[in-house]
């Protein structure tokens, strides 16, 4: 792996996943490889214009967190707490024994507890303001998830929620990397969470034209790179990583799934929902990864970008920015679009994939794929051991309002 300075980056040592593809890494990986879509008709959206979604199947907050805690938390926080617990256990760490002052948590989220807010606002507008729950605001605010994970994991270092729409999870991972490299923390839990599948929110997304209207065939609805795509399917989920400096991970003989070798972020400063037509904001983090110490500058890059505007080609920005390279394509189809902050989980899939596992199939990849980008690199880094030849996989994420974040993932 020439060109990559080992030990100067940040290592992923733990993974937690609570997603429509399952609870826990193994369940997720199996489901992702199966290529079976998680989209389905959602009884809680009965009668709505768009009544399909990807929910986490069988998530029982009371069983996971206890009745005493579960009722006080909106689902976006519940999912994150369970995911964080998995990640810490997976990393071989224990919040009972670590120095919590050296641990931080940074989680991407966009819409917070909108289901709670909607329910309580309905009560308010029905003319019974005294019946509104005193927990409406603490359950609804986006920052609360970082605070609750900190409480659950006895984290006394920095806690933060990054809100950069679809880039939120990547922003969180990049922020965590900076905290570690600056010496602010020794361990950081970083990732994304979102659970915003409420009627009012989905109606708003539908009014934007962002949601697929293929409600008669949910499993075929999500096809972001197809000619006949008509929007995304809302999903929910949380994915949390444990990050440590590479030398610390090595010193304690921790398993390193992958390294976060680089991070950069830019803003389009162009439009509320549409990406820059030439992908200018996306090109800069990709082309000039100013904070990607030791990261590869070219070759073997695997790029990916997304946004919600159905009138825009999902690949237009990156194609303009990067030339004719093919996007990764894949789990966006399968798990739905975790309304905004789910890209943390997309990093997760890549991190897991970097460990020389088979390339997973994409649901509906064959179904009318627009194939706008060059397929020449299709096979690079796909098979077992291929990650060793691949100097770096880049994750590019574009968020509503022109937030762009780029991560460089390398094999550990």
């Amino acid at each position, binding site marked *: 792996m020439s060109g990559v300075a080992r030990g100067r980056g940040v290592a992923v040592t733990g993974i937690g996943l609570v997603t429509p593809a399952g609870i826990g890494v193994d369940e997720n990986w199996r489901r992702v490889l199966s290529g079976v879509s998680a989209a389905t008709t959602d009884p809680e959206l009965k009668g709505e214009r768009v009544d399909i979604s990807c929910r986490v199947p069988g998530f029982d907050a009371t069983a996971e967190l206890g*009745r005493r805690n579960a*009722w006080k938390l909106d689902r976006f926080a519940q999912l994150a707490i369970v995911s964080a617990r998995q990640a810490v256990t997976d990393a071989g760490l224990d919040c009972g024994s670590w120095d919590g002052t050296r641990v931080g948590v940074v989680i991407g989220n966009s819409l917070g507890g909108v289901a709670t807010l909607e329910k309580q606002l309905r009560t308010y507008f029905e003319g019974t303001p005294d019946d509104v729950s005193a927990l409406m605001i603490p359950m609804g605010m986006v920052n609360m998830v970082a605070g609750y994970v900190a409480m659950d994991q006895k984290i006394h270092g920095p806690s933060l929620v990054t809100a950069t729409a679809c880039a939120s999870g990547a922003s969180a991972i990049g922020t965590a990397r900076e905290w570690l490299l600056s010496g602010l923390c020794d361990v950081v839990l970083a990732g994304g969470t979102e659970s915003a599948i409420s009627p009012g929110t989905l109606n708003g997304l539908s009014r934007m034209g962002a949601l697929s209207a293929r409600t008669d065939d949910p499993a075929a609805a999500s096809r972001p790179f197809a000619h006949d795509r008509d929007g995304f399917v809302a999903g929910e989920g949380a994915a949390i990583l444990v990050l440590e400096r590479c030398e610390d991970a090595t010193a304690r003989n921790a398993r390193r799934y992958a390294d976060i070798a680089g991070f950069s972020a830019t803003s389009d400063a162009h439009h509320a929902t549409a990406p820059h037509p030439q992908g200018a904001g996306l090109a800069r983090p990709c082309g000039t990864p100013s904070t990607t110490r030791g990261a590869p500058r070219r070759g073997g890059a695997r790029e990916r970008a997304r946004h919600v505007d159905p009138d825009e080609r999902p690949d237009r920005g990156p194609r303009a920015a990067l030339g004719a390279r093919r996007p990764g394509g894949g789990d966006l189809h399968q798990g739905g679009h975790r309304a905004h902050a789910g890209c943390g989980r997309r990093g997760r899939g890549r991190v897991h994939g970097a460990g020389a596992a088979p390339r997973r199939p994409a649901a509906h990849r064959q179904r009318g794929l627009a194939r706008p980008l060059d397929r020449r690199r299709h096979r690079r880094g796909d098979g077992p051991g291929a990650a060793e030849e691949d100097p770096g996989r880049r994750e590019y994420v574009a968020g509503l309002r022109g937030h762009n974040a780029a991560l460089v993932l390398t094999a550990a």
Partner: protein
Amino acid sequence: MTALSVESSLKHQVSGLISEKFGLDEAELLSGATFDELDIDSLILVELSLILRKEMGIVLVEGELKSSFTLDEAVAVIAAKADQA
């Protein structure tokens, strides 16, 4: 019913509600611990007042239930309100 048995019945009604809505063990509630010790903070006491009003028609003024109260102390306040009603 005697005043004592009314209060005792009220106590079980309230502890049942708290247990059901907030996921607390009734035995814990009846142990004489304060709301503070049971992680029932001021926000949750606002919720409790809301529930008492909706389920039992007892209207408490904000701040009448305190997190330093035990269940018995809270029930005494609630019983006094119920008498007024």
